[in-house]
C-alpha cells in the first residue's frame, strides 16, 4: 500500500493495517522521505542565514541597499518554503527505524499474509500528567507529560495477540538561575508497554509464573521492568528506558522484553505438554 503522503504532511501520522512486508516497505519509504525533508529543511536554513548575512552587509555598504532588500526577501521566501517539509516527520526519522525493527521481529512469528496494525505518530500531541511549581528555584515550573508515538498489534502463529505501545515520558523544568538567565531542562524516558493475550489451551494458566518471569526478563543497561501483571488470559509488562537513547537501543529493549516473556511462555507450554504426556502414560496429572 502506498503511504498517504498528504496525511503524513498534515497530521504527521502513519497508521496502517497491512501484512508485515507491506509495512516494512512503507516505513522504508517514509524514512527516505523524512531524510529528504530533513536535508531540504537544513539546506533552506543555511541559505536563509547566508542571504540575510549578505543582506545586512549590503545595507551597511549603503550603495547596495536595494540588493539587501532583495536578499532579505529571498531569505524570507526560503524560510517560508521550509514549512512545506514537515518538521516533525523530518526530525523523527528514527521512529521509522524503530518501526522496522519491530516488524522484523514480528515477521519471524506471524503469517506473512496476516495484517498487522501499526501507528507511528511523528507529531503526537502532548498529554499533560502533572504541572506545578518547582520548589527551590526562582520562577521554577515543572511539567510532566507523555507523548504516545508508537503502537502495534499483531496475531502471532501460536494464537497470541501481541500489542505494544511506546510513550515518551517527558519532564520539563524551567527556572531562572542565580545570574538571571532563564533555563529549561528536559528529561525524556521511554515507557515500553506490552500485552500478550495468550491462548490458555496451549499455555495453561500463566498466573503462577509471575516470579519466574520477573527473574527471567533481561534488559539492556538503563532499562528496568516496572510492572508485570499476569491473568489467566493475558500478560502485561511495562519497562522504563531511563537512558532515552537511539531507535536501535529502544528496539533492543523491546525485543529483549518480548523474549523474556516468551521464554516463560515457552516453558509453560512445555510443562503443559509434559503434563499431557504424563497423563497419557497413566501417571499423576
Amino acid at each position, binding site marked *: 500500500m502506498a503511504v498517504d503522503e498528504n496525511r503524513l504532511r498534515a497530521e504527521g501520522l502513519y497508521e496502517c493495517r497491512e501484512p508485515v512486508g507491506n509495512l516494512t516497505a512503507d516505513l522504508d519509504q517514509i524514512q527516505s522521505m523524512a531524510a529528504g525533508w530533513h536535508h531540504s529543511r537544513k539546506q533552506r536554513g543555511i541559505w536563509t542565514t547566508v542571504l540575510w548575512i549578505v543582506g545586512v552587509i549590503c545595507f551597511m555598504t549603503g550603495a547596495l541597499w536595494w540588493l539587501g532588500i532583495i536578499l532579505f526577501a529571498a531569505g524570507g521566501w526560503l524560510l517560508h518554503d521550509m514549512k512545506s517539509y514537515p518538521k516533525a516527520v523530518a526530525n523523527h526519522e528514527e521512529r521509522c527505524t524503530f518501526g522496522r525493527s519491530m516488524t522484523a521481529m514480528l515477521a519471524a512469528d506471524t503469517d506473512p499474509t496476516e495484517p498487522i496494525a501499526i501507528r507511528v505518530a511523528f507529531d503526537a500531541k502532548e498529554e499533560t500528567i502533572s504541572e506545578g511549581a518547582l520548589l527551590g528555584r526562582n520562577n521554577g515550573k515543572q511539567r510532566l507529560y507523555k507523548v504516545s508515538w508508537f503502537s502495534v498489534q499483531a496475531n502471532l502463529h501460536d494464537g497470541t495477540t501481541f500489542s505494544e505501545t511506546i510513550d515518551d515520558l517527558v519532564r520539563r523544568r524551567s527556572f531562572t538561575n542565580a545570574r538571571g538567565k532563564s533555563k529549561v531542562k528536559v528529561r525524556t524516558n521511554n515507557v515500553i508497554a506490552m500485552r500478550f493475550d495468550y491462548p490458555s489451551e496451549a499455555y495453561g494458566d500463566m498466573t503462577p509464573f509471575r516470579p519466574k518471569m520477573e527473574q527471567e526478563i533481561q534488559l539492556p543497561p538503563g532499562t528496568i521492568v516496572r510492572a508485570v501483571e499476569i491473568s489467566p488470559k493475558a500478560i502485561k509488562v511495562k519497562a522504563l528506558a531511563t537512558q532515552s537513547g537511539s531507535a536501535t537501543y529502544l528496539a533492543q529493549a523491546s525485543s529483549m522484553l518480548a523474549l523474556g516473556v516468551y521464554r516463560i511462555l515457552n516453558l509453560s507450554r512445555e510443562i503443559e505438554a*509434559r503434563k499431557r*504426556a504424563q497423563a497419557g502414560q497413566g501417571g499423576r496429572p
Partner: protein
Amino acid sequence: MTPPPPPLPPGWKCPRRVGFLFPHACLRTTPVGCPDCQNGMIEDPYALRTDRYGYSRYDYYADNYFLDLMPYYDPGVPAAPVDFTEADGADLVTPGDDFETDMSQS
C-alpha cells in the same frame, strides 16, 4: 560448481523449527533460499538463532525450572509435540483493557 539439490517429493513439508519468540513449523515449500535454515544447512534454526541479545541458550531449561513449577515432574517422560502451525487460529483471544495507556503504574 555445486550440484543442484535433489528434487523434493510432492507435498514435502519442512521438518525444521523456526521462529524468534517461540518455535513453530516452517511453512516454506523448499529449503532453497531459506534465510532460516540457509538452504537446509542448519538443522534447528530456532535453537541456533544468534540474534537474541543476552538470551543465550534460549531454548534450554534446567531441571529446576520444571521442578519448581511442576510438582510431579519426571525428566524421563518426553513432552508431547508442541510446535504450532498456521492452523492455530489467531482468533482465540480478544484484546481487552487499557493497561498500556494507564500511566498510574509507570
